[in-house]
């Protein structure tokens, strides 16, 4: 079994805004494109044009319906990839040391040349964030685009994960979550960012920003509460004649 570092210098990770994610899958495909062409084996697709296509993705978007106690049902789009946990059970379970967490930045990676494809790490991950590539027989997972974020062949502004760079709605943020002053830490503080399944004790680095309350724009009907919007819609007068009278008076003031 493999040891985790005592601590990491930084905690690089993603902050994903569930209030903003429209579920467009841009991050999913951008990730597929970059990581097919870069780190390790290509992300393969089996039965690609057939009855049950099934390929390797390092990032997927799930959609859930939520029924609040009162009001209309809601739909939440939920992108999910490796959360680069501080206490990553996928690393400690690895029999060969192929899975490891980097000391410099906390990124969890698989060294494919040491991976025997046993799949224990995928079983150990409570998030289902690892996928075995069926063509290469090695475990694939989010690398946080370790081959982009330090890449001196890329312009500085592009040194961020492919999913973050491409997200059209700006719902994905990348940074150092160990630094309380970083933009991502500030965002987490402001918006009440949360861990995914904290009860698992994995201490994920990635954070999710919860959706803001929905469907607040209502005038209370039978509740007897004061209608705060009513003054904005006070009728000026009744009937067409009254309206034209008001019009004339108002025009005088223009």
């Amino acid at each position, binding site marked *: 079994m493999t040891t985790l570092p005592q601590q990491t210098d930084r905690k690089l990770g993603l902050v994903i805004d569930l209030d903003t*994610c429209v579920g467009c*899958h841009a991050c999913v495909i951008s990730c597929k494109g970059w990581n097919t062409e870069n780190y390790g084996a290509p992300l393969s697709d089996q039965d690609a044009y057939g009855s049950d296509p099934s390929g390797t993705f390092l990032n997927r978007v799930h959609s859930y319906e939520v029924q609040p106690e009162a009001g209309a049902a809601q739909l939440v789009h939920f992108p999910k990839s490796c959360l680069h946990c501080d206490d990553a059970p996928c690393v400690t379970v690895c029999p060969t040391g192929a899975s490891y967490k980097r000391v410099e930045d906390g990124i969890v990676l698989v060294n494919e040349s040491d991976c025997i494809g046993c799949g224990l790490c995928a079983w150990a991950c409570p998030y289902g964030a690892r996928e075995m590539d069926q063509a290469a027989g090695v475990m694939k997972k989010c690398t946080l685009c370790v081959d982009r974020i330090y890449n001196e062949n890329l312009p500085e502004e592009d040194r961020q994960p492919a999913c973050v760079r491409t997200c059209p709605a700006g719902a994905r943020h990348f940074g150092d979550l160990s630094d309380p002053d970083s933009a991502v830490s500030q965002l987490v503080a402001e918006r009440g960012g949360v861990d995914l399944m904290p009860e698992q004790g994995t201490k994920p680095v990635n954070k999710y920003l919860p959706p803001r309350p929905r469907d607040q724009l209502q005038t209370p009907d039978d509740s007897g509460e004061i209608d705060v919007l009513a003054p*904005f819609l006070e009728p000026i007068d009744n009937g067409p004649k009254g309206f034209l009278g008001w019009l004339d008076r108002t*025009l005088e003031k*223009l």
Partner: protein
Amino acid sequence: MTHSQPPLDLSPKVSDEVRKTTCYMCACRCGINVHMKKGKVAYIEGNRDHPVNQGVLCAKGSAGIMQHNSPARLRNPMKRVGPRGSGAFESISWNEALQIATDWLEPLRREAPEKLAFFTGRDQSQSFTSLWAQAFGTPNYAAHGGFCSVNMATAGIYTMGGAFWEFGQPDWDHTKLFMLFGVAEDHDSNPIKMGLGKLKKRGARVIGVNPIRTGYNAIADDWVGITPGTDGLFILSLIHCLMKAGRIDLDYLARYTDAPVLLNSDPKSPEYGLQLRDENGKALVIDRKTRKLTPFDQPGVRPDLAATYRSGGITHRPVFHQMAEQYLGEDYSPEAVAERCGIPAPRIRAIASELARVAFDEAFELDHEWTDFRGEHHKTMTGRPVSFHAMRGISAHANGFQTCRALHVLQIILGTVEVPGGFRFKPPYPKPATAHPKPHCKATPDAPLDGPHLGFVHGPDDLALKADGSPARIDKAFTWENPMSAHGLMHMVISNAHAGDPYKIDTLFLYMANMSWNSSMNPGGVMEMLTDTDENGDYVIPRIIYSDAYSSEMVAYADLILPDTTYLERHDCISLLDRPISEADAAADAIRWPVVEPNRDVRGFQSALCDLGAKLGLPGFVNEDGSQKYKDYADYITRHERRPGIGPLAGFRGEDGKDVGRGAPNPEQIDRYIENGGFFVNHIPEGATYYKPWNAAYQDWAVGMGIYDAPQPYLFSLYVEPLRRFQLAAEGHGDRQPPDHLRDRIKQTMSPLPIWYESDPEGTQGYDVHALTQRPMAMYHSWGSQNAWLRQLHGHNPLYLPTAIMREKGLRDGDWARVTSPHGGITVPVMEMAALNPKTVWTWNAIGKRKGAWALDKDAPEATKGFLLNHLIHELLPPKGDGLRWSNSDPITGQAAWFDLKVHIEKTNAPAEAQPEIPPQRSPVPPAPRDVAWKVGK
């Protein structure tokens, strides 16, 4: 094992070269960086410098590499050798293909050019394809707007000189309340997502009005799950509330709209309802200062919204009087509309209140000085931070035109168009209907058409009718059935050609339009029409030429196939003459160029048209000596001049490449575009970026750019006078008279002020559930299913049913239902969805595929469980017993009324496959590989 880290190359080489071009994975037209390795496409990302997407890219765009390498790509020209529909073809050379086409088309042009019907689908080169069709001389040309969103485009242009998407955008940086109606999620896809992101970052409120809470509606702060087809009623109720409360921008209405324009108010007058005009045709108003009648645009005039004017025994009242009369009545009170709209009355009031609160109580000033067209100087620009966007959801109903009009009237009474925080036009818009061409339809043997096909009518005189009053066009565009059909009616072409109504054609020439499948209503019927034979055993539609890059369902129905390239192998121009990609602060255009050369015997369709045009000797496509004028499309893009100095591309003009907008053709123009990242941007100067229709500085800039030839300030048309001219004709006035069976409908529907009417056609009693489709954000029409990555996201399309219907029918997820309409039935898998209007069911569009198409296996889920709702929708309304063919379209514009569909649902036993089962077509391309795993660089 103790912690150890292997050495890692953190700076691997990304690519050999980046080539910047324009995406074509949908209609958004983002800039892309194509990373090349060893001469091959390796990776695609968004271009940060590009005005449309500013670096971001959607799922489709990033999956472009799989489209470019799709196994469904056509390989070479083909001629049909089996029966139509079978898919049996023989490969031929381009020489032979072009000769066949020439042999078919040359006699038509010589004798009866209208026998060619040339229609293009997702065409992004309409200014070129229409030019070709004009040169040929056929009146029968249009693109796909008639079954897409012509209501939105036309209503916007008639009302305010532009609509949403390509015409304009919300002021994302200043808006505080954004209201989104029924959007098709791939239209303007990245800009809207980017805009929503900006709003969310600022905590601005988003209201989504849509029967289905997915996508953008899922992240809306407030979701209004409206009943389909009632958006217009809801909007008119908002207008009612705002007018009744006086929460409207009277100053804006008086200055910039026709609200003060005087209308003939004498019901006995033959000019009843028409504007009072001076001898130059200028609309007249009463000046509030002098109390005198004056043209609206004179220096210093302050038009009066209230004053009436009497002359010659006729009273003239301002448009605004009529609006008060029409909208203050209780017909539009929230209580009166709530049930039909499926929105509680208090909620309608709450939304109206919020619109008013933000528009007026959060108004702000920008320190931009400007001068209006009346010469008045303004120190600041007033901002009203409320904006709107809408698309096909409200458009594809038989009441869609009036609904879209209502939405624009709502924007205008709030004073939110072309102001900071509101809705802003993108050059070449604003451009009023009067500045657009009128339709032309005069076909003359051996000669070009008398002008552009499509345009804007202003009354009965502009209709495309023959001398005997019959339709001049095969799609019956610009006739009494749908007078303002500015985009044509592509959805009626095959049906009309098959019926010989209004006449028979010889050759149907289609480009990039999957008309035998997802792009048609009633695809089963269309397949029969395309294969139907007459008493001699000849096809009723004698010849079909089709161009497509991929093995679509339509390929099987062509006699001759002209294979197109993929979007990475071609030249294109995204032109200001066509469907622009400008931003509100800048005019912009772009190119595509072959970042890789095709490895198949294919040609860009537009280049093939240059070849075919030359072989046919079409004017404009041959030199004086008869030789071919344009070597290919790139040559056309570079050298064509629409007016002297104005060409397809506005950037890098003139011999030194330094002219902008106007300038001589520059032989190196395309190279300059490539060096510039594939696009060109010219920013609007500060002080000219808002109030554009009335802003002297903007008008002058637009003239310099070649957008106009002279400044053309105008008033927004709350009241669309051309509609009234058609009503007058229906009332019996004028020489050009509608047929009697259409008089009542014209009178009822062509109201010059927006109205709402029930769009549910007669004959649907017993079908009480609305059925809609929407497009997944990761797919574009039928294209996505051939893409190994995208089809893993959306390979299945169950019919989503609201909880109440699931329970009522005893259905559970995975069960099957028989879904019927007055036209037909389908049997499909169902799934429950709670966040849905309780009277509405829906599915993803164009996931269902015919076996044999798109290089998919015959047992692909798209072909076994996937289905099209199209089978339930007829291109005609249910017969009325009068023997007439009534098109299932908006009676004003001819927009296909896809979303008026109503169905009945029953649980049924699971069949082996979704029904109806269509027999397979033979694939013209080799089978796809089973597994995919490649690295271009290795």
